[in-house]
């Protein structure tokens, strides 16, 4: 046994101490020993017990030869003292005869051997001494092992037991007995059936019988022990066959450790793990964990789906490069490494990914360092949320807000115009009366002058100025008058022709050639003739003023069907006209200076005029548009493409019952 302390002395030569009151004995024995085995022994005389006590026995000798012939009491004291040491030093008594030895009966077990000193047989002394020393050492080692075993049995907290072939306890340790609420001895002879419920006792019994039959041990079996009183505990139990000296199985022995606390913790951990897994797999976000090298060490179900795999095993240990194109993988990998290096997480980073079907998916991703119990960063934890719907809703909302803002501006604009209109009505009324006084005054003066050209010219100028003022005032009043139309189905070409006839002098004066290009058999349009007249008068007047040095006015009319809501169809148009609806369109094209870019946005605003002060009221186009809109129509005004000049285009809807000319 390695745990047995070996004798510090070398085995040879045998060191012997002779405890004797008679110094002559030393010489006598030495001679005897030498004659049997020369040089094999060293004998030293110790005169008294006190002297012996002063020595370190185990380093001084292998055996003590105690001469008990001199005095009984001294010898008894010496035997007791040496025996108490329980050392490896053998005690051999030198006695006169057996009777003398018998007088030491109470301590005889402490004596390893005796020698009848007076009749020492030749050749026997050395052997007897050697045997005594060997026995002493064996006994010492046995005792030592017993100590270890007892120590183990008594102190170890695990339950240790030995059972016979019928599974009855033959020996149990203190921990086991205590755990059963018994003492060590009271358990002996009982079986599991006496201590546990049958629920536990029967399978335990069956296990043990199997071990006895097969010789196969059961190692680290986790089992639940339910005691007769109802309480239970979890144990980790190992059972092995118990064999005798000859190798025959004579029972079983086992050791079991109470792992109730561990099991509770383990159960709790299992439960928490299950809970965590449930949460991770049912949360609507992707969750993943990576180690310091960027290898996945965990991934929830949604993230597996994102990576295009079904089993977590296909992801664990892989890196970004196994799942993403290189460029993308590199970007994310660098991001991860930055987090690991700096310990600073990434919160709500917005990322997009275009799917094969072209749809853009938006994610909000957060990644934080994964810290172990020592505070060291050992990886990253990521959580990523699909925010596409929110993002799309946001966009929709933004667009709606934009539309609302525009509508609000339009409403404000409309309200402004209403106010202007109301003001205009009042102003017009107040101005017309004095104007009429002036115009009638001029009429009167006109009838009174005779022959003076100069006066006639002045009066003519005054007349024209008043007429001009009257026109402005009338337009203002038109603008502010209630927007009602008296519409009947009309041929728009007829209206255009009437206006052209009415204005032929204006065109001639301005050296403008008129080119009508009016389609035959146009569907009728619900029109208020007077108001529509005004539309064309205004447009033609504008064209005339745009072609200062003369030019060509082209008027084209045609009907068309609203085909689709394609890119070249304006939003306003899709609101006004339905696909399939027929429109009558009139294009008024001039060869004038066109529309200046800074004017483009304001053309239809009331009081906006490009004509020099006094040249126009700025109401013409505004009124024109109002009238067109009253007819549920639309007007656009833009420059001609590739050639100077402007083109006004009018669209009027054809009502279903007015398709054919009357």
């Amino acid at each position: 046994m390695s745990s047995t302390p070996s004798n510090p002395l070398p085995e040879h030569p045998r060191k012997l101490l002779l405890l004797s009151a008679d110094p002559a004995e030393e010489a006598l024995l030495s001679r005897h020993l030498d004659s049997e085995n020369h040089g094999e022994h060293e004998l030293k005389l110790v005169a008294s017990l006190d002297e012996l006590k002063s020595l370190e026995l185990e380093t001084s000798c292998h055996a003590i030869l105690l001469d008990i012939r001199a005095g009984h009491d001294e010898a008894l004291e010496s035997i007791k003292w040496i025996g108490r040491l329980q050392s490896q030093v053998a005690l051999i008594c030198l006695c006169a005869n057996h009777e003398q030895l018998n007088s030491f009966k109470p301590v005889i077990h402490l004596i390893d051997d005796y020698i009848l000193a007076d009749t020492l047989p030749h050749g026997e002394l050395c052997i007897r001494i050697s045997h005594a020393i060997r026995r002493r050492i064996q006994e010492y080692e046995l005792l030592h092992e017993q100590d270890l075993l007892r120590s183990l049995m008594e102190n170890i907290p695990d339950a240790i037991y030995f059972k016979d072939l019928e599974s009855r306890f033959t020996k149990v340790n203190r921990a086991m007995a205590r755990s059963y609420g018994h003492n060590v001895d009271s358990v002996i002879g009982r079986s599991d059936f006496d201590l546990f419920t049958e629920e536990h006792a029967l399978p335990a019994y069956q296990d043990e019988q199997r071990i006895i039959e097969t010789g196969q041990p059961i190692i680290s079996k986790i089992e639940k022990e339910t005691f007769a009183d109802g309480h239970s505990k979890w144990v980790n139990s190992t059972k092995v066959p118990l064999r005798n000296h000859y190798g025959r199985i004579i029972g079983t022995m086992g050791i079991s450790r109470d792992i109730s606390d561990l099991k509770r913790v383990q159960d709790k951990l299992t439960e928490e793990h299950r809970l965590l897994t449930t949460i991770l797999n049912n949360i609507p976000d992707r969750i993943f964990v990576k180690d310091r090298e960027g290898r996945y060490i965990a991934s929830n179900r949604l993230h597996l789906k994102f990576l295009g795999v079904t089993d977590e095993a296909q992801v664990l240990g892989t890196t970004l490069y196994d799942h993403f194109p290189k460029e993308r993988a590199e970007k994310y990998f660098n991001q991860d490494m930055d987090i690991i290096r700096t310990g600073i997480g990434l919160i709500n980073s917005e990322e997009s990914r275009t799917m094969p079907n072209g749809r853009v998916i938006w994610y909000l991703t957060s990644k934080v360092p994964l810290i172990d119990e020592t505070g060291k960063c050992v990886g990253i934890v990521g959580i990523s949320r699909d925010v596409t719907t929110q993002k799309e809703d946001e966009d929709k909302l933004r667009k709606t807000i934009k539309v609302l803002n525009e509508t609000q501006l339009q409403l404000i604009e409309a309200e402004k115009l209403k106010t202007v209109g109301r003001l205009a009505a009042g102003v017009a009324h107040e101005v017309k009366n004095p104007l009429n006084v002036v115009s009638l005054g001029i009429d009167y003066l006109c009838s009174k002058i005779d022959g003076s050209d100069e006066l006639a010219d002045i009066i003519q100028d005054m007349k024209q100025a008043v007429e001009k003022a009257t026109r402005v005032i009338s337009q203002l009043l038109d603008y502010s008058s209630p927007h009602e139309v008296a519409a009947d189905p009309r041929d728009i070409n007829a209206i255009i022709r009437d206006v052209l006839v009415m204005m032929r002098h204006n065109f001639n004066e301005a050296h403008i050639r008129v080119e009508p290009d009016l389609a035959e058999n146009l569907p009728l349009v619900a029109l208020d003739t007077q108001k529509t007249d005004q539309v064309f008068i205004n447009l033609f007047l504008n064209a005339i003023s745009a072609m200062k040095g003369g030019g060509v006015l082209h008027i084209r009319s045609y009907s068309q069907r609203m085909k689709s809501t394609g890119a070249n169809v304006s939003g306003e148009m899709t609101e006004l006209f339905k696909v399939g609806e027929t429109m009558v369109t009139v294009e008024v094209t001039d060869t004038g200076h066109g529309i200046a870019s800074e004017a483009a946005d304001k053309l239809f605003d009331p009081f906006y005029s490009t004509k020099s002060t006094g040249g126009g009221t700025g109401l013409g186009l505004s009124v024109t548009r109002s009238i067109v809109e009253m007819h549920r129509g639309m007007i656009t005004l833009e420059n001609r493409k590739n050639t100077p000049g402007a083109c006004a285009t009018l669209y009027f809807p054809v009502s279903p019952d007015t398709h054919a000319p009357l």
Partner: protein
Amino acid sequence: MLHSKKSKEDGKTRVLVIDDEDRFTKMVKLNLESTGMYSVEVLNESRKAVEVARDFKPHIILLDVVMPEADGGDVANSLRTRTATKEIPIIFVSAMISQKESHSGFYESGGEHFLAKPVSTETLSGAIEEVLATL
């Protein structure tokens, strides 16, 4: 008929102009009378319309619509409920009507005749003659 019955002592048509704007009535009077065809009486206080009409016995009345005392509608009602004046034709003259609505400045709506201000002498006399011709 009535018109023909009414005598034109001096061969002139008697016109009563009712308008609160005295400069306007003055100008109308000047212009119409200068044609030599009309004898014009003006009235700037509309509430005296019936009284003046009864005395003057006009062939036709030019009546402003918007006036501070009694407006054109009220005056017309009063005139048409009096035996002495109910047959006299009335032309309403108003600044509230636009030239466009009145077309050439004179038009008929709901059995009534309208003239839009500003109105020229030519339009005035044309309208008077037209109305009287229909009687």
